[in-house]
């Protein structure tokens, strides 16, 4: 875990510094484009987290491994925060570039729907007291919601709307200059490691919480006996 923490901090510092100070200005957008060094990784992570959650839920349903349920549960709030960050940075960029903070564009809308899916998933964990049952129900919710992922990814290709199409992951190589691409990739790596670090911390604290609860219940029982 300290190792993960180290990689997160280093790559975050390098990626952001490179992106925000060293990378050249865009000839049209000037320095405003630099928000992509936060926006693109967080949008990507918002989808990645949901994918992780769906896979972990599937593992939880099929092999009934409690750790899989716990990791899916731990990933949800992180993913929700990434989604908020992606929407927020996107709208900050949209104001000077598109002239509006928000527009009902296909990708923006589907990203917003993704946020609601995260909320629904977290609400399930909050609504059901029985942990094992909550895990099963939440897993079904996560898997059903996963239908939205391909819609977000391809929304820009299907509906020709304001949001620009993919420029990194597409056939024929990236259409973005290496001077900007490298810091962006480092930022994506940094966000990924951030996710892993926080995920591990959250899972650990969830397990500790469970143990504390178990101990408390045992203490009450012993008191009743005595």
């Amino acid at each position: 875990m300290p190792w993960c923490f180290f990689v997160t901090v280093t790559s975050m510092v390098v990626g952001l510094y490179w992106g925000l100070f060293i990378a050249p200005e865009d000839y049209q957008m000037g320095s405003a484009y630099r928000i992509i060094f936060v926006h693109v990784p967080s949008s990507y992570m918002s989808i990645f987290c949901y994918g992780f959650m769906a896979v972990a839920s599937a593992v939880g349903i099929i092999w009934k491994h409690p750790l899989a349920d716990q990791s899916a549960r731990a990933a949800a709030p992180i993913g929700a925060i990434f989604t908020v960050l992606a929407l927020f940075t996107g709208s900050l960029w949209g104001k000077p570039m598109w002239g509006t903070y928000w527009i009902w564009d296909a990708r923006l809308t589907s990203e917003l729907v993704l946020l609601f899916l995260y909320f629904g998933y977290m609400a399930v964990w909050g609504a059901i007291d029985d942990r094992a049952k909550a895990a099963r129900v939440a897993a079904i919710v996560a898997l059903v919601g996963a239908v939205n992922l391909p819609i977000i990814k391809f929304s820009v290709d299907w509906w020709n709307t304001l949001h620009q199409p993919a420029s990194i992951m597409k056939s024929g190589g990236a259409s973005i200059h290496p001077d900007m691409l490298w810091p962006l990739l480092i930022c994506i790596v940094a966000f990924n490691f951030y996710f892993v670090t926080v995920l591990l911390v959250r899972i650990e604290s969830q397990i500790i919480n469970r143990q504390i609860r178990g101990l408390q219940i045992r203490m009450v029982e012993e008191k009743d006996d005595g």
Partner: protein
Amino acid sequence: MNTHFWSVVKRDIKIGWQGGSTSSMVVAFFIIVVTLFPLGVGPEQSVLARIAVGVIWVAALLACLLSLDRIFQADYEDGTLDQYALSRLPLELIVIGKSLAHWLTTSLPLILITPVLAVLLNMNDAALLPLIYAMLIGTPALSLIGTIGASLTVSLKRGGVLLSLLILPLYVPVLIFGVMAVDAGISGIGSNASLLFLAAVTLFSFAITPWVSAAALRLALD
């Protein structure tokens, strides 16, 4: 097997029209929601004509959502669902039967009343036929997807709000293509493409939801 299936459907339809008649209440809710919009945005005819299709679709979604909890709730409480689970009919088929009954008792009355509401909202005449087609094709998906939320929240005491939070995001494609079909119909492009997308959504949910809902029901009955 066949007769068992139809008896499930018939029983739910009967319950839907009996006594307090939830179906007529859902229709009343639909009309009231639609009536609220002219009060909210003002009675200007051109504005109403512009938003009529969207208003009718959103009201239909809400009316459908409102009636979802009754699909499994009562059966779960009085033990009928346990009997269903023990019967020879697989739970998946029971889910299909119940969605069919739900569609016949809620969505179909909504579609029948839609022409009247279209007149009230000063909707473009050319829009009516595409709207009816779109509703006929799209609303089965609402009932089917709805069974997922209904079955997941059936054992919860206060599942209503959670149900809406889970289901409404999944209704988005139906709403988008439903409105797009009508817009394309008015503008003369032809609504076929959007209607096909709607049909795809309905067929896809028909293929997936029975399994998901049945799994959720087994979980609730454990």
